[in-house]
């Protein structure tokens, strides 16, 4: 049994910390809830979760077909470039769009009993990671087909993927809280993300853009993407982008914690 003693109306930073630890501690519950969500999403389909793999492969194929005439690099490189980049983009954008709805969609649970907010974030994160795993099948398959063997440096991509998860965790709190309080935010984020797909180097290479890249490089998503893709694809570590990712990780974590401390007990009234 979990500790079943609680005090309402005490220090909010302690309470936020307790929320995170107790949320992480209840891994059995969030894993069960995440699998339940996935089970329901693919209910009564024949190939089930493989639909994510299929739709991802289909999308990559079409994009490669359309965009390869515009590029100067060889098609093997470009195919993997698009696949890895789009994989990272899909993961990031699912973290952001799920983050917006994480609390508004959990109203039924939050009003049914006392559960840490972190639990719902964990459910949503787990779901995204599971789906990402099924998308990665395509990436791994393409790399095998084109004989691109990852070097030891590719482990950096794994580190960056873990940073994605840390940032996704923070973003869930930040966006989930803001979207619960100000309902316009989720629409705004949707509009922004749709544009960001094209402003991020997924279908184009930064070198192609010339002077324009100076401005496009202000897009933080670009650096997240580059620092995941480069170690895996070309075995180099883009230190500048990596620094951007690290600083974002620090800033978002602090912001998320402060926001959680402020909104933890208020959010139930905003749903």
């Amino acid at each position, binding site marked *: 049994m979990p500790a079943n003693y*609680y005090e309402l*109306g005490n220090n909010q930073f302690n309470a936020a910390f307790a929320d995170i630890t107790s949320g992480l501690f209840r891994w059995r519950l969030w894993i069960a809830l995440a699998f339940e969500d996935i089970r329901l999403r693919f209910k009564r389909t024949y190939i089930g979760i493989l639909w994510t793999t299929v739709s991802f492969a289909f999308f990559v194929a079409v994009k490669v077909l359309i965009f390869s005439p515009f590029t100067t690099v060889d098609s093997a490189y470009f195919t993997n470039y698009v696949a890895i980049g789009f994989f990272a983009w899909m993961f990031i954008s699912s973290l952001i769009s799920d983050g917006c709805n994480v609390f508004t969609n959990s109203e039924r649970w939050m009003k*049914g*009993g006392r559960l840490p907010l972190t639990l719902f974030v964990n459910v949503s994160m787990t779901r995204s990671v599971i789906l990402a795993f099924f998308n990665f099948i395509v990436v791994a398959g393409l790399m095998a087909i084109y004989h691109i063997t990852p070097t030891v440096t590719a482990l950096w991509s794994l580190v960056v993927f873990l940073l994605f998860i840390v940032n996704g965790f923070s973003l869930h709190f930040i966006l989930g809280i803001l979207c619960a309080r100000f309902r316009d935010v989720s629409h705004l984020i949707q509009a922004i993300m749709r544009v960001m797909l094209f402003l991020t180097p997924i279908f184009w290479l930064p070198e192609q853009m010339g002077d324009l890249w100076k401005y496009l490089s202000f897009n933080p998503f670009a650096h997240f993407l580059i620092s995941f893709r480069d170690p895996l694809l070309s075995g180099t570590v883009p230190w500048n982008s990596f620094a951007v990712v690290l600083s974002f990780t620090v800033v978002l974590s602090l912001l998320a914690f402060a926001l959680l401390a402020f909104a933890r007990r208020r959010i139930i009234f905003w749903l």
Partner: protein
Amino acid sequence: MASIVLEHITLSYPILGGDKPKVVGPSRLGGAGSVIKDGANRTRSVVALEDISFELKDGDRLGLIGRNGSGKSTLLRIIAGIYEPLEGRARIEGAVAGLFSVGLGVHPETTGFRNIMLSGLMAGYSRAQVTDMMPEIAAFCDLGEYLDMPVRTYSNGMAMRLKFACATAFDADIILMDEWLGAGDPSFQDKAQKRLRKMVDEAGILMLASHNHSVIRKSCNKLAWLDRGRLRAFGDVEEVLAYHDEATRPPAPPAKTKRQIGKERDRAARIEADRERRRQEKRIELKREKRRREKRRQIADAKKVATDVAHDADSTT
């Protein structure tokens, strides 16, 4: 070992967007329903509970009474830890099981079995432990093969049975019920009552919000009366009920004045006169109608005689 300690709990619901209640004229007396305004005189929140303090220990079965909107549900949700008061403190010791709306804490798309599993995990049990308890829980809610179907397909009563079984299967020290004891068919009610009694006897606290005083008398040994977000009375069931009944009895109609009596008599007389006049008119009308009918018959007879004569004349020629 369960205990509940509330100290000066005050809770107000913020009003976000949309229509904010406008208070016309002087605000009400305060307490629940009174609105809090910001510096710009805009309505920001509605008070639900104000300055609530009490303590409960093992074996206490507290009933909550009060009109709709008096804060009963809000108070239960504070003790469940769902709402946290922005003012005051609450200390709750013991595992809490809350029976609020049927739909809360249930996955409608998922089967009954899986919902039981999820409830068990939420109560802090492991998968293996819940699996061990499953047959007993399934027997208690007595839903048979329906447990393999999504909860969305259940009737309201069936969903309630599942919810009740889930909430009470996993050892809880504090049980909170919002208007629940009347749920289900009589045989299930009986079972539910017995289980609740057993749980409370095993050292625990029950809090029950209800408008049904006989249910309160049967299940509770303490009673709190909430009136517009304030604790109006707290204590022995019969004493609080007596006080409540005394205080809420509608006032007797005031004694009539002489003038009123006179007015009423005049009115009765007028009505009687009116009726008499109508009866008179009806009698006259009936008489006229009778005379008219008589006349018509005489004319018809005369015509008949005339045609008979004509007919006789034809047949002879």
